[in-house]
């Protein structure tokens, strides 16, 4: 009896201790936010580019912390609306009700590249062919590159900025086939297309590397020059948004100024985006 009581006493002390520890940790993490930090939340397509700029900026301005969170365009817009992030990032155009109470600023333009595996001999497709592939009218590669293999479509999920941009710019109201694999990021799509010789997908031009092959649409390659002179037409804006009702903090304004500065724009262009001034 005595012994079991002691045991209970010991373990309850342990539980008490761990409860206190937990509370202490929670309190500590709450107290961490300082006035010198800015949070940007939104599109996973924009996140890598802004993370890169934020690193450069923080290097030059020690004492300022910039948090960049890639949660998706809709989440970014919501975060800006309800104030959980100072700036939201969207890679899709705002819907009417969202545009009503949000300031929007184009920071750059991004081209969507249609990508295939490097082993695929195809270099060029027409818009109609890409649409026929993605809506399921062309289930195999037979008519395109003479292999009988069935096409593996790789798409994004509904709600993603990349998805809605591709849908708007190219699909012309046709539904993307329900056979299409859906992945949560540009990087995941690139990985699948790089691994699978029969795959075709679409990603930000800035994310394209040698593991995949970007193809020409109607004979126009998605190169920076062709995006500049607007002969390549799969282009979408990258937006910063914040509530019309609030003014930005000086820190946030300074970071936006940096993003729009010639230096910031050059940096974005070097990562594969297109400067806003060129549109």
């Amino acid at each position, binding site marked *: 009896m005595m012994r079991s009581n002691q045991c209970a006493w010991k373990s309850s002390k342990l539980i*008490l201790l761990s409860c206190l520890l937990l509370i202490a940790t929670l309190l500590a993490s709450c107290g961490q936010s300082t006035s010198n930090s800015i949070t940007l939340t939104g599109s996973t397509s924009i996140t890598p580019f802004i993370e890169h700029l934020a690193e450069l900026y923080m290097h030059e301005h020690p004492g300022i912390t910039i948090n960049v969170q890639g949660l998706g365009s809709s989440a970014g817009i919501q975060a800006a609306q309800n104030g959980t992030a100072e700036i939201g990032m969207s890679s899709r155009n705002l819907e009417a009700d969202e545009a009503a109470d949000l300031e929007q600023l184009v920071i750059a333009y991004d081209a969507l590249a249609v990508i295939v595996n490097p082993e695929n001999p195809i270099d060029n497709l027409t818009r109609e062919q890409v649409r026929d592939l993605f809506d399921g009218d062309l289930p195999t590669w037979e008519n395109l590159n003479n292999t009988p293999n069935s096409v*593996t479509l790789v798409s994004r999920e509904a709600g993603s900025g990349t998805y809605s941009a591709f849908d708007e710019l190219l699909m012309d109201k046709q539904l993307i086939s329900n056979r299409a*694999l*859906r992945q*949560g990021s540009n990087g995941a799509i690139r990985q699948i297309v790089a691994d699978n010789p029969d795959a075709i997908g679409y990603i930000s031009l800035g994310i394209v590397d040698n593991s995949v092959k970007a193809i020409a649409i109607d004979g126009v390659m998605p190169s920076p020059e062709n995006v500049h002179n607007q002969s390549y037409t799969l282009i979408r804006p990258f937006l910063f948004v914040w509530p019309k009702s609030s003014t930005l903090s000086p820190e946030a304004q300074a970071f936006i100024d940096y993003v729009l500065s010639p230096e910031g724009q050059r940096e974005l262009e070097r990562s594969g985006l297109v400067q806003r001034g060129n549109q």
Partner: protein
Amino acid sequence: MSERLIRAILLTTALLSLISLAVITFFIFQAGVPLIGQVGIAPFIGGTVWNPTGDPKSFGILPMLLGSLYLTVGALIVGVPLGVAVAVFMAELAPRRMAQIMRPAIQLLAGIPSVIYGFVGLTLLAPFVREYLGGPGLSVLTSAIVLGIMIMPNVISISEDAIRAVPNSYREGSLALGATQWQTIWGVVLPAARSGILASVILGMGRALGETMAVIMMIGNALQVPLSPLDSATTLTSNIGLELAYASGQHREALFATGVVLFVLIMALNLIARAVSQQQTN
């Protein structure tokens, strides 16, 4: 004094867990049920087109419901026979020392984060399936194999307990009648441990139905009704996990409504598991 303080603290923690269950239930139903009301139960559960941002919008979760179902059955086909076999070995056949080594090893298997399982499935198993069996590789089969391994620790530990709980007199009686050890296991021990094994299967089913991260990585998330194990599919959980971050408005509500369906399924499974295991103790 301190005795009463600690009692109060522990009571609060206990209540907190109850309260959080109530809050979660309320929140999910509040966020999801209105949309089911708008769409209608039959078109929501029986609809085959999921296009939550299109024009017109369409909210049919049948492909995901079937995807969840197929994947769960597949995981059970892989995980249960293996798991029960391991449990029989550990409880009836293994030398004591060997069982002592195996038990923590299996517990370790349960402790591996699901994202690691998903990663292994994605990088090792999926290319293998694509190359040698066909299809896109990210498929129901790939996910079912990995998920089967993931539910094995649950199946093993609960089944083993159930087998050990079978009174020794049963075994002695069977052996005394001239049955071999295998005949004793198959004809006497396993039937006697039946309800415990069944409970382990149902708990494994719950785990397979609820697994999200690993499934998102391995199943490809295509919105079709899978017709072959080599087809890609979407499950209820993987679709919520994939789309929630990007969803707003009705789309978001529809994901919560998917959560309601999942919640009801899991609750039903838990109740069955409870009933089954209580049947054993009586």
